């Protein structure tokens, strides 16, 4: 499994000189299998450039964790969606009140977008309930996680390697002494023992105090969650749009200096590729 980060920013894109190293595009992750099959995790603005590498494929699958703008705003600029030679499958959280098709249409339709969803050539939309399913050579486990609205995390397994993707996640919400036991920790099953965990780490500790209930983690909570889940490697993700490259470097350095980590810690940067064997 080859995993490439195309957008690691959360909430709002933040292009500029101060974010050039970590990147300013919002959440988008490319996952490739042995036969070069393509699975995309979220469609933030980073998915536009990701899509440029999809030429020649007959099928692309996009797994959306939820429909907040920073995770879907790239859909309208994702090349395969407009290519009649490509079968694009969109997967996303089910809702008790409306289909995923109806909810995506709220964005991909006027006045928010000039081209309605119904005009796209070959799109199939799948409402995902918690549980396992198969996409090509990948086994996918989806589960609801602690984030406002119905938000999924995904666990991908391929050839014995496991990737856990929880880009928007606040496992410490309401937990006075986080982390508690694993049975009572949101996202634990998805992340347990994963070779690579991509996890929300938007806030510093002091920032988190002013953002409790917003659905995101502090870096310390992400570290604690990864430790509880026993992952092999943690990639911090969903960087706050106000965090410059310098600040992210300082945060990472402090983590490495302060913590005795049982896993590798990698602050998520656009363009980084991981090979999971």
């Amino acid at each position, binding site marked *: 499994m080859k995993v490439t980060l195309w957008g690691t920013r959360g909430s709002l894109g933040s292009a500029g000189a101060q974010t050039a190293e970590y990147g300013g595009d919002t959440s988008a992750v490319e996952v490739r299998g042995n036969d070069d099959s393509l699975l995309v995790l979220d469609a933030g603005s980073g998915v536009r450039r990701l899509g440029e590498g999809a030429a020649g494929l007959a099928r692309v699958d996009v797994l959306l964790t939820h429909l907040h703008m920073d995770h879907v705003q790239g859909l309208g600029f994702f090349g395969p969606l407009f290519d009649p030679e490509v079968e694009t499958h969109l997967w996303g959280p089910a809702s*008790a009140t409306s289909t995923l098709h109806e909810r995506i249409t709220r964005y991909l339709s006027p006045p928010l977008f000039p081209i309605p969803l119904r005009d796209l050539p070959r799109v199939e939309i799948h*409402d995902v309930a*918690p549980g396992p399913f198969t996409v090509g050579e990948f086994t996918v486990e989806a589960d*609801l996680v602690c984030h406002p609205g119905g938000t999924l995390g995904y666990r991908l397994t391929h050839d014995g390697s496991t990737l856990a993707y929880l880009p928007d996640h606040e496992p410490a919400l*309401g937990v006075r002494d986080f982390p508690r036991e694993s*049975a*009572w*920790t*949101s996202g634990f*099953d998805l992340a347990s023992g994963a070779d690579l965990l991509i996890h929300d780490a938007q806030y510093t500790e002091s920032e988190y105090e002013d953002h409790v209930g917003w659905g995101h983690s502090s870096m310390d909570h992400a570290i604690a969650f990864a430790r509880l889940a026993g992952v092999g490697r943690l990639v911090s993700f969903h960087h706050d749009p106000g965090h410059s490259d310098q600040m992210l470097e300082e945060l990472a350095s402090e983590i490495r200096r302060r913590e005795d980590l049982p896993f590798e810690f990698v602050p998520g940067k656009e363009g980084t590729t991981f090979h999971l064997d």
Partner: protein
Amino acid sequence: MPAGRAQQPIEIILLRQWASYIAIPTWIVDTNGDLIYYNEPAESILGAKFEDMGPINSAELARRFVTTAEDGSPIRAEELPIVVAVNECRPDHLRIRILGLDGASRLINVSAFPIEGQSGRHLGAVAMFWEVPDE
């Protein structure tokens, strides 16, 4: 706990966290009717701390917490609001008498409703109760 999982469903996790913050006695059962949590306000009615009791299966629950109708007459387990909520997936309300683990008999109003997750997942039930003065 759902089969094959190490973790409670997120809806139950959030429900427990919410219950831990509110002042209304609350207890939560899973789809088997096993008690998986009750909050601190409930402890004064039930007569024991949850951290001392831990989770209790449904059979043991009936043995430990003896419940009767308001007038003290027997009541079938199936009539209890929490059991209705779990088994019939609908809300229910009843005034009952409960014998706490501290030996005290208390008259309580109980409202229970099922926890239904997205995609038709039945996850358990929650009961909220409060003591009423014995007349």
